[in-house]
């Protein structure tokens, strides 16, 4: 099959976006989007793991028997996560201190596994890697956007503490939009996560409708 | 008499005063009668007359076909103009096979069956045959052939015949009048039925808003033994046989079973009177009492009308309309069916013709359900109308079936009370029809499958036979060769 990298890109970023189309990886999406910075950080960490594990599974796919494929995939994801965890802890410690909390959670994020099953298990190495990469980027963007919305409404800021994640050079990103202590707190509490995701889904639908696309009614889980 | 509580139900505005004091009057013979060949539950009757034939009053027009069916008879003497399809008093407005009879004005009786001398010495079969021959069907609305019900004593141990004089529908007073004016005939009919059924006891249940009827019936009952009049509370739908039985005996009829399964047979009071006529005089069922009422009618009346008379004729006899009617209804306002036109005939099951004003109908555009639960509290069958309607609205008929639509007997209590004016009963009627159609389809598919299998088997047999023949032929041609070889 001829591989269309444009297709892979479009799927990952928009059409088949992990969060907004497949409704996968919901847990980090809810838990880690209390601010745009947090969402971005979680997304980045996931991206690395996804690209690496997609690559590895595609490389080994001919040796993995059907019966044990799930454990093997999970093993690979878990190993990648641990690897990233250890490496960053040792050599990128400043970054680790910010992201460290999120990293073990990636294992149980079902998005990487879903991509392994749906893509990497069937496709060659390079497209798989690209799929992981773009799915990861799409995931990162989604989390950043959700985080931004919740942060603006809930705390009145945007990209607060970005310098901690990206270094002092990015301090300029940190914006205060509302005066201190005026946010609608519920946005950064658990209910806000669900509400923001739901409303953003509607926004995506409206954009899709405008572009003349059909509304996709169900996520990847719908039969 | 000790009564038992019945669940749910409503207390609508009864509006019976307009006709309850009007004695029954006979309709002047109309110029033409349209007698439907199917006026009952079961198989249609088969016409035995043809165009141009002259018939006498009471002569057979259509013969019953099959076990559950009923014949129809000529309400008067006259000429058969046609046997054709005419609109029926059915909401679909569809045609049905009809005998068109032009009265000759003589109203001349034909040969009637002989009276049964002593009905209380007759066998069940004799009485049931007579009732069947006279075309008597339940006049309480269900129009089930009464003879079939008279045989129930043979297979069930019965304790009681319950005469249904509840007449719980608003407006209707025809049963009330029959009980007041013909109490003795009703009681006699009841005793004949009880004899046929082999039940020792007769109870006549009458809603307590009909004191005159209670009085008249009590007087008639006192003349004989074994007949008790039981005033029952005014609570729609007390007239439903299952609920009446529950109110009087405290027993609940299991679903999909008959009241006979718990020892009670229920008949309408007018049915009893018709049976009295059939047995004592051999007279078939050729007319009935119809309440013509509603705010739009100039003067409401109880009319003894020949079967087949035009609804329009009855309304004209009542002085026509006083104002334009919003709805014309066949039967009571709760369970009655809308009339597709006024040019439809009176049938055996037609207890009332109502011309309702807009105000009486009190119709409003439906609003969304607010889940008030009134329908649930009200449903005398313990169903959850709000849930069933939601399923039906979303085309989840199977869920609606699981939720019990098929248990609903369309009493209308839920629709009546619904503050959002949701046409609940309409939903249920649709669902019941659609489910029945699905059922028919499914059975058809089953039949198709058996037919396909049968055909395949047949083809297989033919093929087998052909193969066998070919093999035989081959063997034949081969044998000589081998013969040659051996030779």
């Amino acid at each position, binding site marked *: 099959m001829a591989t269309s990298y444009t297709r892979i890109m479009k799927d990952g970023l928009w059409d088949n976006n992990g969060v907004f189309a497949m409704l996968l990886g919901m847990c980090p999406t809810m838990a880690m989007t209390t601010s745009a910075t947090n969402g971005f950080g979680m997304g980045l960490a996931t991206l690395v793991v996804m690209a690496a594990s997609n690559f590895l599974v595609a490389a080994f796919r001919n040796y993995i028997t*059907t*019966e*044990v494929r799930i*454990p093997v995939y999970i*093993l690979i994801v878990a190993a990648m996560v641990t690897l990233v965890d250890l490496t960053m802890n040792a050599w990128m410690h400043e970054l680790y201190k910010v992201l460290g909390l999120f990293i073990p959670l990636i294992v149980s994020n079902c998005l990487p596994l879903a991509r392994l099953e749906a893509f990497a298990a069937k496709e060659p190495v390079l497209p798989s890697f690209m799929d992981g990469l773009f799915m990861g980027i799409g995931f990162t963007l989604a989390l950043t956007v959700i985080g931004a919305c919740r942060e603006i409404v809930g705390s009145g800021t945007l990209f607060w503490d970005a310098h901690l994640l990206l270094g002092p050079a990015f301090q300029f990103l940190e914006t205060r939009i509302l005066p201190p202590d005026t946010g609608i707190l519920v946005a950064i509490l658990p209910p806000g996560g669900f509400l923001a995701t739901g409303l953003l889904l509607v926004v995506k639908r409206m954009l899709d409708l405008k572009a003349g696309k059909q509304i996709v009614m169900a996520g990847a889980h719908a*039969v | 008499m000790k009564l038992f509580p019945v669940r749910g139900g409503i207390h609508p505005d009864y509006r019976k005063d307009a006709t309850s004091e009007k004695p029954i009057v006979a309709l002047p013979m109309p110029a033409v009668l349209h007698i439907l060949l*199917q006026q009952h539950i079961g198989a249609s009757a088969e016409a035995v007359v043809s165009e141009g034939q002259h018939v006498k009053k009471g002569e057979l027009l259509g013969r019953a076909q099959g076990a559950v069916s009923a014949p129809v008879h000529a309400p008067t003497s006259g000429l058969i103009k046609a046997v054709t399809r005419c609109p*029926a008093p*059915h*909401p*679909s407005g*569809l045609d*049905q096979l009809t005998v068109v009879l032009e009265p000759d004005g003589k109203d001349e009786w034909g040969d009637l069956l002989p009276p049964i001398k002593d009905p209380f010495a007759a066998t069940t079969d004799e009485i049931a045959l007579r009732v069947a021959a006279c075309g008597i069907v339940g006049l309480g609305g269900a129009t089930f052939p009464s003879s079939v019900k008279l045989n129930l004593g043979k297979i069930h141990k019965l304790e009681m015949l319950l005469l249904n004089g509840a007449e719980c529908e608003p407006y209707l007073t025809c049963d009330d009048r029959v009980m007041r004016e013909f109490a003795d005939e009703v009681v006699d009919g009841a005793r004949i039925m009880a004899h046929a059924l082999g039940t020792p006891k007769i109870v006549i249940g009458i809603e307590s808003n009909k004191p005159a009827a209670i009085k008249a019936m009590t007087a008639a009952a006192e003349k004989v033994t074994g007949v008790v009049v039981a005033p029952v509370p005014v609570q729609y739908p007390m007239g439903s046989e299952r609920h009446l039985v529950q109110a009087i005996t405290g027993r609940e009829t299991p679903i999909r079973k008959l009241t006979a399964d718990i020892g009670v047979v229920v008949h309408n009071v007018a049915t009893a009177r018709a049976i009295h006529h059939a047995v004592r005089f051999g007279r078939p069922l050729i007319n009935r009492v119809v309440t013509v009422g509603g705010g739009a009618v100039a003067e409401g009346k109880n009319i003894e009308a020949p079967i087949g008379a035009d609804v329009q004729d009855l309304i004209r006899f009542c002085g026509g309309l006083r104002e334009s009617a919003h709805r014309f209804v066949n039967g009571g306002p709760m369970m009655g069916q809308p009339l597709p036109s006024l040019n439809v005939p009176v049938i055996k099951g037609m207890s009332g013709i109502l011309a309702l004003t807009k105000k009486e109908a009190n119709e409003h*555009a*439906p*609003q*969304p*359900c607010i889940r008030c639960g009134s329908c649930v509290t009200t449903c005398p069958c313990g169903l959850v109308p709000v849930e069933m*309607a939601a399923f*039906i*609205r979303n*085309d989840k*008929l*199977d869920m609606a079936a699981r939720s019990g639509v098929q248990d609903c007997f369309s009493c209308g209590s839920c629709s009546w009370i619904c503050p*959002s004016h*949701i*046409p609940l009963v*309409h*939903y249920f*009627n*649709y669902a*019941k*029809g*659609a489910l*029945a*159609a*699905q059922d*028919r*389809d*499914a059975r*058809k*598919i089953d*039949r*198709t*499958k058996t*037919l*396909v*299998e*049968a*055909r395949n088997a*047949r083809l297989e047999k033919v093929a087998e036979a052909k193969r066998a023949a070919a093999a035989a032929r081959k063997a034949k041609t081969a044998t000589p060769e081998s013969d040659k070889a051996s030779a």
Partner: protein
Amino acid sequence: MILAVGSLAAMGTALGALLGIASRYLAVEENPIELELAALLPGSQCGQCGYVGCAQAAKALAAHEAPVTLCPPGGKAVAEALAKKLGVTADLSEHEEHVPSIAYIDESLCLGCLRCAQECSVDAIVGAAKQMHTVIAEACHGCGKCEPVCNTMAITLKPIPKTVATWYWPKPGGSVH
């Protein structure tokens, strides 16, 4: 280090063995869904669904390649049964278009050639050679296979007429409910 690698490998081997055995042990239970689906279809092999016959149609259904509304002769009832079996929600709106019908043979045109009778998979057409044929309305399920084989165009499919017995109230329409 050895311990780490060793214990992990041991766990993996054990789990792999378990899964292998499990798959062996469970493999016998073949998914019977195809047969069940085929049992729901009318079985007249008429091909209106676009598959060679009901068995193929069932296969396509099982693979989620065909909509549950595929079988016109089966009508709504079959579509719903299929939807239930497959655990999907059926969009039955397309089915409204398919009016259940049965075949009629125009007596004046029929030559008695027997072609239609041979075509009918439910033996709904009766008649001897050279004599007028008729359709048994109860048996015909309106598949239409007979229509094209008739040289004189004596066969037409007509919608089954509504009667008082089969009529029922239409679904309430209206604004909000």
